[in-house]
């Protein structure tokens, strides 16, 4: 009797101990693009929760109770870094009681470490607006960056979950192949966009511009993160008379009024790009994100 009971108990303990190992790797993604990438690389071996959605300004997120709960249970956080999440991620990390996701551990992933940063400021002064010391953090608008981050993430997934290292590597190879094909297609399709002059609402697109050869001639925000003022918009309008642009670019999360105001007066279209996965009907995954971005730009630049 006792023997049977102890056997049962042992089995229960084993089960309890084994359960977390067989469960999927819990990933908390700071932004949806990294959530989508983790999903591509992890398949059913990962369970991804996106901390933010495409309609939220990633600069202004709060350390909500729901995010604290997710951080506590996460095996890995995948974030942009470059201080994009500085207003909320440190709180999540400090209060999570979770050593796995602390900086320096395999469970802490910063995408910005794997790409070449643009717009790295040469002077740091808050009078210049919301500038990030490490450079512009909106790296996800260039699919070549996605490829670089994918390579880094696949390696780190393997470190965080060594039992499935081979799985992540295989999925990465597969993703990488499909991504290179798609990349070639997008670049071919987007060829007419090279040299097209654009106006942006927020300085959120240097990587997209770098990729497609778009020429940013003006910004609606007078300084990064500073709401467009009527004086500044009037200046931009005046500037556009001398130096015309073909379109105004804004992200799905940006407020639409400043762009619309300028579009009506400068007689150029506004292009609302999804900016991240979920930012439009078509941007259901990373492939859709760039399919849609390129199509929207082409349609407006025609």
């Amino acid at each position, binding site marked *: 009797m006792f023997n049977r009971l102890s056997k049962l108990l042992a089995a229960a303990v084993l089960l309890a101990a084994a359960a977390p190992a067989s469960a999927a790797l819990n990933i908390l993604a700071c932004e949806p693009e990294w959530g989508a990438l983790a999903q591509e690389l992890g398949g059913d071996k990962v369970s991804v929760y996106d901390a933010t959605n495409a309609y939220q300004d990633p600069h202004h997120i709060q350390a909500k*109770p729901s995010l604290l709960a997710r951080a506590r249970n996460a095996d890995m956080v995948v974030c942009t870094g470059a201080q994009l999440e500085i207003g909320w991620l440190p709180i999540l990390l400090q209060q999570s009681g979770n050593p796995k996701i602390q900086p320096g551990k395999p469970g802490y992933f910063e995408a910005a470490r*794997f790409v070449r940063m643009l717009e790295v400021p040469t002077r740091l002064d808050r009078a210049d607006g919301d500038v990030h010391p490490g450079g512009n953090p909106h790296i996800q608008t260039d699919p070549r960056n996605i490829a670089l981050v994918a390579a880094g993430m696949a390696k780190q997934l393997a470190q965080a979950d060594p039992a499935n290292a081979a799985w992540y590597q295989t999925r990465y190879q597969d993703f990488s192949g499909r991504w290179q094909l798609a990349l070639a297609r997008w670049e071919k399709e987007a060829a007419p966009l090279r040299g097209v002059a654009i106006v942006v609402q927020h300085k959120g697109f240097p990587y997209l511009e770098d990729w497609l050869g778009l020429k940013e001639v003006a910004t609606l925000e007078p300084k990064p993160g500073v709401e467009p003022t009527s004086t500044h918009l009037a200046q931009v309008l005046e500037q556009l008379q001398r130096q015309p642009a073909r379109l105004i670019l804004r992200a799905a999360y940006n407020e639409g009024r400043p762009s619309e105001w300028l579009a009506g007066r400068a007689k150029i279209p506004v292009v609302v790009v999804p900016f991240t996965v979920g930012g439009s009907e078509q941007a259901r995954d990373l492939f859709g994100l760039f399919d849609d971005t390129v199509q929207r730009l082409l349609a407006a630049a025609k």
Partner: protein
Amino acid sequence: MYTRKIIASGIIMMLGAPLSAFAGESADLQQIRDEIKALRQSYEARIQALEQRLQKTELAASAAGKRAAQAETTASQAAAAVPAAPPDNINAFNPGLSLILSGLYSNHSHDPSGYGITGFHLPADVMSDLQPQRGFSLAESELGIYASVDQLFFGGLNFAIHPDNTVSTEEAFIQTTGLSHGLTVKAGRFFSGIGYLNEQHAHTWDFVDAPLAYQAFLGGQMNNDGLQLRWLAPTDTYLEIGAEAGRGASYPGTGRDKNGAGASALFAHLGGDVGASHSWRAGLSLLTTSPQDRHWDDAGVTNSFSGNSKLWIADAVWKWAPNGNAYDTNFKLQGEYLRRVEDGSLVYDINSPVPGSYSATQSGWYLQGIYQFAPYWRAGLRTERLDPGSVDYGINNAVLSRPGYHPARQSLMVDYNPSEFSRIRLQFAQDKATEGVTDNQIFLQYQMSLGAHGAHKY
């Protein structure tokens, strides 16, 4: 000669079509027109040829660009593989410094020198901190220093610089980051985790002053020297349980010199999201202190209380932002209910002591809503009320007054936040904390934050 004529006519034609009306229909002019047409055609052909060449060059360039991009990719991969060497200077490990600067102008319709919360016994030193000042003053300015200690600990210090030129240590703590299973231990001096507002620094409050209930029961804000243990439950719904043991030197406790803990606290928080647009948190806390000889002045007489004090706090906050994007517009509703039960002995007039007993149950609440109606602009309304409850002084009931007065205050504020780092606030309040006095208050306040970008609690 002839060419010059053509050029001249050409310029005239280009300058304005109306001129051609005066030129007439001479054969000469017709000839000129034909020649210009021929010229234009030839130029157009050459431009087309040029354009074709340009296109070819561009194609070649874009191919080169692609190759360059590929090279860049490899290069940046290489760059990523070799991270930049960290700065070699001696201060490279210096912690993050953040400075909060705040100043205040206050206008009171009633002289605040006799200010008090009728029916609530606050020690004289606590009262003097809470007492409003008229005119210009420095509001609480703070200096914070925070950093990771090592792979296991995080630590920080926060000095508050008060208007009267004194400096106090609001927080000086270390906290674990290396424990697993959702556990966090904090030690040192820290704001107690009870309630909602208590744990937040004053510069993140939505009004100039703390709610009356916080003033009456916690002396504004309660910090404690001690130990805190928090546990986050492994659930997708946020559930946090915390316990504290500390010295309890500050009100409602008193300074003490003995082994063990003078204050203990228990708290539980529950929270989550409803869709993408709503989030909430609710909590229940209990603070237990055992004050010894806690003095308070009443009508020129100093009395002293020793015994047990239990403070219950129920708090809730609900936040709304369309799609969770709080940048343009958002709303926050927040309320707390505090109930304090105290019993023990009371000495009436410590100069000619009359010992007696004391038991009291008092409560208070506030409810506030903050609406951001446009980027940078917020408006808020706060309503609050205290209940004197039941107070029994035993044999001293004859000499101590037991007013049935309900202190109350209504506040309205508008603030302008041009960035995350600056805030200018205008606040109007009608304060009826003291029986028989209605003080109409106007505050103008600035709060600025410099240095390290502090992350704020929910």
